[in-house]
């Protein structure tokens, strides 16, 4: 057991300052044999150690279809993430265990219209799937990304979003909560823009959503109103985890282990869980 908890060392190849409190760490394993074995699917997560500080759970925010590296986007929230932001520089080593957890239901969404609804740092797990789907664009029909942030400065992956906008096969809708002088896009919270601007097609569409709890709450209500079936709405849960192996008991919700049976769930599955997340 203890052997399963020992991380592999990875080098921080690049640090991208996404927003004032979010940074993306581009990581490469130091040992090539680890790189070969490390394969993941969108939605999976890793245990990220700043050795000497602690271990935290983060989703992988890039897709394995982009070879040679993987990204973790980290928002400064608690003690360990603050240490990560202040202590890690490009070229430093971190410890990585994983990948763990389930992944977005890639078979179920094949041949469907995809609607991504993200808020704030919640775009991180979606980005892994978005990249994956872009790299397999032929497998999917209409492709819409609705992304909201509190202010324009809080928008993650700005450069990449510009690329998505240039891609004519993708519809990108951006919004911020309150008006700003230089902002020419939508203004308003995500659920409002979803209903008033995006007006998605319901039939044959899968919705993949992730964001802060309050956004998720109202977005799920909006999707309900729009007529989406709970089984067509997919989200990923954030829950305190520690081992990632279905052993330490921290992420138990009822008899479900979020680290093994999740973190990706349909809204239908979430409704069956006790209200403890």
């Amino acid at each position, binding site marked *: *057991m*203890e052997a399963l*908890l020992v991380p592999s060392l990875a080098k921080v190849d690049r640090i991208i300052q996404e927003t004032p409190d979010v940074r993306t760490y581009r990581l490469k394993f130091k040992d090539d044999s680890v790189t070969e074995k490390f394969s993941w699917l969108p939605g999976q997560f890793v245990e990220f150690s700043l050795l000497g*500080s602690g271990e935290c759970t983060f989703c992988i925010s890039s897709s394995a279809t982009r070879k040679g590296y993987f990204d973790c986007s980290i928002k400064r929230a608690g003690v360990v993430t603050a240490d990560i932001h202040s202590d890690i520089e490009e070229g430093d080593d971190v*410890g990585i265990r994983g990948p763990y957890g389930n992944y977005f239901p890639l078979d179920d969404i094949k041949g469907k219209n995809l609607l991504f609804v993200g808020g704030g740092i919640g775009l991180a797990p979606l980005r892994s799937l978005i990249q994956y789907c872009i790299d397999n664009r032929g497998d999917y029909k209409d492709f819409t990304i609705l992304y909201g942030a509190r202010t324009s400065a809080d928008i993650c992956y700005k450069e990449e979003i510009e690329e998505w906008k240039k891609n004519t096969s993708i519809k990108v809708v951006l919004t911020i909560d309150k008006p700003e002088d230089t902002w020419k896009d939508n203004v308003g919270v995500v659920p409002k823009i979803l209903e008033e601007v995006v007006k998605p097609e319901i039939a044959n569409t899968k919705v993949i959503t992730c964001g802060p709890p309050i956004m998720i709450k109202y977005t799920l209500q909006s999707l309900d109103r729009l007529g989406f079936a709970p089984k067509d709405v997919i989200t990923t849960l954030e829950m*305190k985890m*520690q081992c990632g192996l279905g052993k330490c008991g921290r992420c*138990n919700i009822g*008899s479900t282990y979020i680290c093994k049976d999740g973190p990706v769930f349909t809204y239908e599955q979430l409704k069956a869980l006790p209200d403890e997340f």
Partner: protein
Amino acid sequence: MSFSTFVTDKAGLQKMYEAIISKHETYAPVEKFGKYDYKKVSSLKECDPDSPIAETMSVKPLFFPRSSKIMKYEATSAGTSILETDQDPLTAQRVVLGVKHCDARGLQVLEAVNKWDYIDSDFLKRRENTVIFSARCDKAGTHCFCTSLDYDLENLDALDIAVVNGAEGKIYLQTRTERGETFLKEKLEKSTMYNVQSTNDESEMKKQYVAFAASFRLKMDYKDINEKMAKRFDSPAFEEASRNCVSCNTCAFICPTCHCFKISDEKIKDTGVRYKSYDSCNNVYFTLEAGGHNPRPAKYRRWRQRSMHKFVYYKERFGVNLCVGCGHCAISCPVNISIFDVVNHIASTPVGS
């Protein structure tokens, strides 16, 4: 493989135990401050294989240590390196004397979680390499209810060798697993089997089991409890029942089946050690997220998680209750809360009121 029964007396058993201790790595309950904990012993005088259940810690830490080292590392400005990882030290066979039946059953219950998906091979290997001699449980303690929880006195194979009192000072040894059978028949030299003779007469043992089973104050229909608890997630009885809990976490730390753990680092200058140590879901920090959100902020929610995990969730997932009825939690609770009483109370409250 067929299993065997032997008969001896107190002197014969002691002689055999002494021989085992001198030849094998042996663990047994050792007293300190009136409490017995399983420790490595070098003579029978140091320990008491028949320590009172109320004053004996669980044997679990011999299989799932209270703390274990994951790795040692060095993190300096020059770079990071992992210096050593923990190698499981257990390769040779060891013997544990005086394990309560419930406690051994706890190890069996824990196998389920340690075997699913990622396999905790250390836990399984430790169990495989350990020969367990049971304590001579012959009278139920105040808080005992092991026999209510799918527990078969006569056939429980969580033990390798059951040690049972008979009439007129006789003591029976019954092998319950291949490991136990091989140990008694092959690993022990004949000379150490002083006054230990093979027998086919198990009637006295059976009588003893009947008497033991009759001595229980507490009896529970766990299937009924499972069913009723599952329907009472929203019962206000959880709030009421948890009010006098002081969230001290002792119940989880001494439980033979609780298995939640935390990972924590100790770092002195550039060198750090990462440990895996026990944790408890009654702890407010257990589910507290870095951003401040806590899915179980109130005491009753954490408390409900623990009791539901014991009697509903684990059963749903792995087909067995995560409680073995040992009563350790009730004995150790500073405010005398008995899980038996509380679970029965909650099950008896009306649904959804």
